[in-house]
């Protein structure tokens, strides 16, 4: 079959970019906001102090808008030449647009850049863990809708165990076991009893939500001191690395859970693409019959890797209670498990890309927090929508048609 491509890339990308460029231009010209935005790059108490950036709003806004229009024009030019818009153009566009929005929002105010980014990493953590669980599970051929339930189970269990034992590490272990238990149910029903994986996942989410809410109001609230006041992990700055300006405080002045996350992302990536384990996982998720004919036990592989996925997602749950909030709250995962699912797809079932997608969602969430604090002119209801709008644009607009593991969602039955 000839590989020559004759279908022209569509006008979708340049049109979207154009609309955003014009929106940016109008925002600056019509709102008539004058003044100076200050971007603070280091907080007091850091070893290296960087000077703060002072940006005049109107001038920066016009420069940025012109650059945006230029990028949109470049994209349109590519389309007329029947070429696709390269991904880096879209990324640069997104970053510029975001900077523009920040400059505009923080007029005559100070934006703590490190604070914004540190919060991004923290808020992304459960999404990243959840997405890793999703990647492993889907790569092995089981659709994991139950990430939300695994997160919530992990959050609940880690809070109780850490409170009772006064040891946060035991809480972490308990969170993994809880996530795994949720996975056992998912695996048993979808692999052994061939129930539709999406349905089992949804039902599990509702079940875990109901169970944890029940125990929260009936048991935990009886003796909050004993059962729901886990010791939190403290921030653990890594010597030397944490002194690097901007990057240091953002990445290397975090809790143990975040450091474990870095290792987990790297391990899952390396494992999936460079080890025997990963080769077999991917084989089972792509073509289970072929895997079977070379002597790989398909359903056993699926069962244990779905369990592993649950354990990883459970760790993400522990972040809520041991890493950030400090106690279990009803429905505290608030749908982040579903955002993690979106990150899996946005990241094309690749652990690194899924992590980046999760960071994007985390950034949107934290931006909404930061903007809320300074009292931005954008209505707060709209700000609350931000992470979800980013998710929809990301998954629907930019991902387009992607191909997941071929056998994901299909139970394997031997003839």
């Amino acid at each position, binding site marked *: 079959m000839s590989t020559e491509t004759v279908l022209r890339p569509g006008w979708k990308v340049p049109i979207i970019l154009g609309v955003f460029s014009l929106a940016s231009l109008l925002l600056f010209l019509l709102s008539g906001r004058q003044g100076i935005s200050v971007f603070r790059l280091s907080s007091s108490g850091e070893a290296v102090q960087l000077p703060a950036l002072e940006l005049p709003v109107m001038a920066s806004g016009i420069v940025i808008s012109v650059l945006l229009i230029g990028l949109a024009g470049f994209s349109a030019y590519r389309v007329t030449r029947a070429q696709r818009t390269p991904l880096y153009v879209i990324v640069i566009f997104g970053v510029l647009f975001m900077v523009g929005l920040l400059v505009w929002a923080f007029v005559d105010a100070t934006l703590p850049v490190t604070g914004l980014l540190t919060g991004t990493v923290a808020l992304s953590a459960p999404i990243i863990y959840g997405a890793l669980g999703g990647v492993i599970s889907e790569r092995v051929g089981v659709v994991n809708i139950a990430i939300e339930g695994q997160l919530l189970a992990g959050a609940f269990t880690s809070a109780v165990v850490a409170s009772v034992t006064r040891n946060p590490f035991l809480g972490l272990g308990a969170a993994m076991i809880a996530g795994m238990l949720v996975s056992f149910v998912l695996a048993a029903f979808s692999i052994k009893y061939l129930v539709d994986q999406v349905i089992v996942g949804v039902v599990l989410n509702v079940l875990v939500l109901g169970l944890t809410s029940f125990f929260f109001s009936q048991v935990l609230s009886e003796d909050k001191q004993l059962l729901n006041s886990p010791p939190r992990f403290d921030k653990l700055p890594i010597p030397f690395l944490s002194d690097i300006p901007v990057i240091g405080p953002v990445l290397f002045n975090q809790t143990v859970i975040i450091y474990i996350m870095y290792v987990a992302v790297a391990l899952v990536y390396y494992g999936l693409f460079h080890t025997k384990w990963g080769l077999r996982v991917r084989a089972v998720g792509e073509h289970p019959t072929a895997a079977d004919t*070379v002597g790989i036990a398909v359903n056993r592989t699926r069962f244990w890797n779905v369990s592993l996925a649950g354990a990883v997602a459970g760790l993400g749950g522990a972040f809520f209670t041991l890493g950030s909030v400090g106690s279990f709250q009803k429905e505290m995962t608030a749908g982040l498990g579903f955002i993690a699912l979106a990150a899996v797809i946005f990241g094309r079932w690749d652990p690194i890309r899924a992590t980046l997608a999760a960071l994007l969602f985390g950034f949107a969430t934290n931006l909404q927090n930061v903007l809320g604090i300074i009292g931005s002119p954008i209505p707060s209801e709209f700000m609350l929508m931000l992470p979800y709008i980013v998710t929809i644009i990301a998954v629907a607009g930019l991902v387009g048609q992607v191909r997941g593991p071929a056998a994901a969602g299909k139970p394997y039955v031997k003839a």
Partner: protein
Amino acid sequence: MKLELRGITKRFGSLIANNHIDLVVNPGEIHALLGENGAGKSTLMNVLYGLYQAEEGEILLDGVVHNFAGPGDAMAAGIGMVHQHFMLIPVFTVAENVALGHESTKWGGTLNLEAARETVRTISQRFGFEVDPDAIVGELPVGVQQRVEIIKALSQNAKVLVFDEPTAVLTPQETDELMAVMRQLRDEGTAIVFITHKLREVRAVADRITVIRLGAVVGVASPTDSNEQLASMMVGRAVLLTVHKDEATPGEAALVCTGLTVLDATGHRVVDNVSYAVHAGEVLAIAGVQGNGQTELTEAIMGLQKHVLGSIMLDNRELTGRSVRHVLTSGVGFVPEDRTEDGLVAEFTVAENLMLDRADQAPFVRRGTLQLGYLRAFAEEKLREYDIRAQGIGTHVGRLSGGNQQKVVLAREMSKDLRLLVVAQPTRGLDVGSIEFVHRRIVETRDAGIPVIVVSTELDEVSALADRIAVMYKGGIVGIVPGDTPREVLGLMMAGEKPAGVSAA
């Protein structure tokens, strides 16, 4: 290694797929297992390979009884299999596919793919294959994919090698090359089981032949037996292998395609600037190896393809860009290549399937109501006329044999007021008896003055039916040649070569 199967019996519910089958394959021998589709050949081999567990009987290798709980055991014992539907993971590289299940690793489970690449290179060299260990399998031509399957089996030091219908997807040239590889393996002492229903290949390559019918061994034949002898053993009665066909009396050009191009979703030209005409009262066969654009070509005529450029004129009316409904009401009958997927609704009855693409108009529907009485009479008549072996018109089509399913599709499509008949792979998976019937109906349709397009990957079928043959390769038509063109010429054309004296399409 000597393979011996003793009294293998495998049941699926009440169906006996294998009934006390005995088979001995010696080292250095190609043993053909000949039988029709559904005779139980593949079941037997899946028992051998550990995919199925037999209820009775034993498997002996060099006189030692083995019990295989899964393919892993069979492989470890030295049995390799080249599957009919390749057991390769399309997104993996050749080396990864060869390594899978027997990965050699370095520290911490890290893959050592270099070892697998080396294996691929060594085996490729031995047989003169040109296989790049780092190529993505899904992007390779099927012929090369099959070689990857062979390499995969040999990399496990298989001493007994099973080829399950290996030639279904190959060009005649590739088939010849495969047979050379099989002979080389045999001469090196491998015991080879060659499963097929193609008589020509059995006679060309087999040392011994065991014929299976309805799950049981019916006898042993010799490669020197005639096609007719082998066929009658296979079917259980005397069969006609060629349809009687008078000289065609072509009329006006009825279907005229000009500059027809079909793009797939990613913009690749799957049909590339094809022009041809089919005359009333002739059969134009479209030959070619599976996947060279034949499917898309027929679907373009039916309006099932999205991106179609060029023109398709039927009786001087434009069909491109029209809906499937419009094409059907223009009098086009269509027998799709996969009857279970596209031709029939398995959960519907024979009667319901017989009116499937006419269920929106009289006489089947009046004032929005199904005319069940009419349908019943119609279905009963077709059941008789087409000799559809079903308990009744209320039987679910999914319960019929392949041959009877195909008859249901044919009955439906041929009982319309036809202006054009498009038949794709008319006899795929059919028994010899049904093939006779289907071929006869196609020739009768032609003789009634209707233009017929037959798409087939089987050269025997093409030669039997065609008045003219268009050979497709990589989306284009290599040439249109007379129906009596020799196989060798067609084979070359199927590989994209244009022999001297063949006019351009």
